[in-house]
């Protein structure tokens, strides 16, 4: 019964730790240490999987690059706009002299408008070819027919646009006619656009009047202080839109008789100032006026490969600095993240110097958050998987490498020292060989009579005493032989510990031993002589 229990794993507790457990603990500890070391090294070298630095580098880099380019282009265009104004004004002064009139007579002599405009076409065609713009315009503060309804907001002028605005002086870029007398277009071989109108309708656009009024209020201020960039406007009846550089036209006598300038359409802005889309396809640049921490994108333009102009946002974006050093731009429903920098459009002493513009590079907030988060979760997953792998391989290694050892130990226990089935380990094989040699030597000694088999008198007496044990005491004694402890014996025989202790006292007395250790010595001797179970 006891033997069966032992085979079923109910063996009594033994001192020490099983070898397999120790080996497993060692392997797990070692590989775990290596994984931790790997993780620490990654962190020490800044490899934490976070994409914040990469995202910041991208957005900041694109912003810096676009800022430099756009600032230079807008600055150059402002200078060219001033030169255009000076040239057109000079042409007009020549025209007044030839026609025997003054700039102030323009509205009273509307028949002079078309010849005056015709005289300006070549200058405008020349300037539009040199400038990085989508269109050039000239607006005179007069209308050809003051008697018409709505004449107060109708102004004569010319507006030429490039249909392929990014091409500067390139073949394939033709001029089209958006505003102006049709006859001038035909004389100059310029086709009318579908949205062509003869005159400008200013009923929905304020910038022209504002620039003329400002110039009239400051007659001594040079043109270099009087130009103004409008927010994005779409002329009435026109499907396209863009920002306009407006420079007043001033004659020799100081009369402000109109406005001229260049258009940068939102299509040109998109073509020339889109951020690199290789890393983030949804990245886009935007310019817009900034007032009180609000990015007025509804008056600005956006540029990104992913976005067409029709996807323009129509509501202002509030700006707030958030964690990770990025700004959050939101209109309440859509959220974007990115960085911006101020665009300097005017000299400090310009009357428009208070008007601030900014250039921003943005991404949808969800995209930016994902980019900032990077692949740290993947990295964590890798570390956890490495831990898991080390655990599993520790189990495998401890089992695989210990199996021959436990088998060898079992063979030693059963005194099977045969060398016909060696283990993979040299040391164990040596031990087996040694034990086999000892066994052989002992057999030879017995055969030679050096070991007589005579037992010591006390042991002989002990064996005699064993026979005096009662049946119950013998059961307890047998379990001691099996290696059981007192508590385990009590459980095995369903007796109380006190009963076992009583049995112990009697057994010790009958066997004439005083301690458990002394009893175990006798038991070992019995085992050595293979007498267990035979008493």
């Amino acid at each position, binding site marked *: 019964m006891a033997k069966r229990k032992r085979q079923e794993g109910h063996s009594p507790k033994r001192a020490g730790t099983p070898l397999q457990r120790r080996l497993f603990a060692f392997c797990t500890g070692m590989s775990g240490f290596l994984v931790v070391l790997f993780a620490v090294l990654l962190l020490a070298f800044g490899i934490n999987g976070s994409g914040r630095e990469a995202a910041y580098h991208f957005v900041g880099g694109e912003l810096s690059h676009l800022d430099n380019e756009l600032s230079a282009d807008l600055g150059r265009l402002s200078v060219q706009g001033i030169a255009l104004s000076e040239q057109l004004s000079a042409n007009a002064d020549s025209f007044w002299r030839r026609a025997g009139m003054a700039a102030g007579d323009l509205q009273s002599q509307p028949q002079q408008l078309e010849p005056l405009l015709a005289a300006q076409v070549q200058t405008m065609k020349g300037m539009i070819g040199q400038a990085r713009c989508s269109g050039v315009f000239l607006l005179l503060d007069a209308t*050809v027919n003051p008697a018409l309804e709505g004449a107060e907001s109708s102004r004569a002028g010319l507006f030429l646009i490039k249909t392929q605005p990014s091409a500067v002086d390139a073949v394939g870029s033709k001029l089209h006619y958006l505003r102006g007398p049709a006859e001038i277009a035909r004389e100059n*071989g310029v*086709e009318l656009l579908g949205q062509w109108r*003869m*005159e400008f309708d200013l009923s929905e656009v304020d910038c022209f009047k504002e620039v003329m009024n400002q110039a009239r209020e400051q007659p001594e201020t040079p043109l270099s202080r009087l130009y103004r960039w409008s927010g994005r406007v779409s002329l009435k009846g026109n499907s396209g839109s863009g920002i306009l550089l407006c420079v007043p036209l001033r004659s020799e006598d100081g009369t402000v008789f109109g406005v001229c300038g260049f258009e940068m359409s939102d299509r040109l802005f998109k073509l020339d100032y889109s951020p690199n889309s290789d890393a983030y396809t949804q990245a886009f640049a935007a310019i817009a006026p900034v007032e009180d921490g609000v990015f007025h994108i509804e008056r600005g333009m956006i540029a990104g*490969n992913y976005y067409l102009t029709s996807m323009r946002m129509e509501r202002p974006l509030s700006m707030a600095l958030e964690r990770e050093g990025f700004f959050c731009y939101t209109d309440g429903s859509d959220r974007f993240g990115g960085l911006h920098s101020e665009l300097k459009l005017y000299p400090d002493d310009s009357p428009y110097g208070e008007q601030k513009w900014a250039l921003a590079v943005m991404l949808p907030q969800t995209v930016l958050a994902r980019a900032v988060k990077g692949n740290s979760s993947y990295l964590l997953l890798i570390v956890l998987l490495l831990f898991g792998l080390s655990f599993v391989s520790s189990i495998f290694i401890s089992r695989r490498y210990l199996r021959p050892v436990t088998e060898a130990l079992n063979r030693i226990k059963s005194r099977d020292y045969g060398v016909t089935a060696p283990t993979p380990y040299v040391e164990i094989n040596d031990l087996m060989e040694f034990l086999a040699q000892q066994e052989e030597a002992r057999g030879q000694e017995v055969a030679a009579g050096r070991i007589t088999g005579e037992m010591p008198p006390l042991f002989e007496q002990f064996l005699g005493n064993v026979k005096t044990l009662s049946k119950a005491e013998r059961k307890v004694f047998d379990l001691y032989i099996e290696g059981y402890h007192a508590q385990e014996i009590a459980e095995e025989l369903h007796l109380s510990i006190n009963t076992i202790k009583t049995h112990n006292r009697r057994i010790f007395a009958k066997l004439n031993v005083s301690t458990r250790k002394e009893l175990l010595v006798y038991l070992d001797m019995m085992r050595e002589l293979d007498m267990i179970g035979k008493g």
Partner: protein
Amino acid sequence: MKRSAMAWVCALGIVLGLFCGCSDRDRPSPKDPVTLTMWHNYGGEMQKTMDALIDEFNSTEGKEQGIVINVTAISSSAELNESLEMIANSDPGAPAMPDICTVYPKVAIRFQEKGALVDLQEYFTQEELENYLPAFIEEGKLEDGGLYVFPLAKSTEILYLNQTLFDRFAQATGASQEKLATFEGIAELSQKYYRWTDAQTPDTPGDGKAFFTADSWFNLAQVGMVQLGDSLLEGESLDLESEKYRHIFETLWVPAVEGGIALYDGYSSDLSKTGDLVCSTGSSAGILFYGDTITYPDNRVEQVEYSILPFPVFAGGEKAAIQRGGGLMVAKSETRREYAAATFVKWLTAPRQNMRFIASTGYLPVTKQAFETDMARQIDEVEDGRVKKMLAAVTGMYEEYRFFTAPTFAGFDELGKDYERDFKALLRRQGESARSGTAPTVEEALAQLKD
């Protein structure tokens, strides 16, 4: 032992698969997207529709598949063709070839000869191609039989009539609108209109107005010859010797020399906007360029109405009209870019998208479903009255007319440009001579054109 080794190999494979992902380099994906450049010629009001469609693609199908369409040029066909010519000739300063471009077969053939275009049959199954009108697919097949110009929207030529001006003219002179059914009738009315307008300012002789023009005199001559049962081309050259061509030439020459026909280098819609024309033949897709007003030199704006009439026929000829309209060509590139471009082309020409484009531009659809079913059903739902009018007229023409497509060979485009330039220059010169009293005869004029 072997089983455990296999298990380890499998486990390792799974782990590597988890980290590396299963990537297919021949296909774009949201994590590895591709951005394609596109040029198209749908400007003005048509641009809104095309922009909206591309926006929709980028935010739906394109987003799912990692395809972004980036429009980098929107210009007229002529301007796009000039840029494409530069690319084809490898001219210095030529722009980069776009991945997708709207183009006519006569231009695409230059690229096809250089092996620079994708045969789109590789990306469409036979079943998918059968959803399109066979004639439109055939038109996009070039010399080697490959499908290099995929049909997106088609058009034909029609007669635009400023009904307001014509009614005014008819009321004063008794001119009959029925005469607009033939070119001979148009020629007669052109002379009549010129004289009538000239007579309104007796103090200024010779200031009569033109009645008619054609956006393409070359197309008119081609169609005219087909109507009369002949051909303008013999092989890859013009054949101007036949009596039938002489009749066409004479029909146009007489009113043109007098001034009743406008010889303008731009589109007829330019002249229409200022009331300098009553009717013109042009592409049905040009409807949105005509507007609905006339602006006079004193800035007065008059509201006018346009009528869309079938393409006129030379007297006694067959009712025939040209079928035109380009398609989309895809530049040869790496497989994933070609695949992405083909995916976009497939999406853009699907019946739903095709009808959306048609309903707001005036083009004709290219899929059987859109052409044969959806268009007739949706004509009433079209918001723009001009487009509705045009679709109704063209649908009627498709029932009565025979349509033919211009041939495609390498020198065809150049041939057409030369004819157009020479024809207009000759008639302008002779118009000036006639006004100075030294007009040549029609034989002499024709002989000059042949030279």
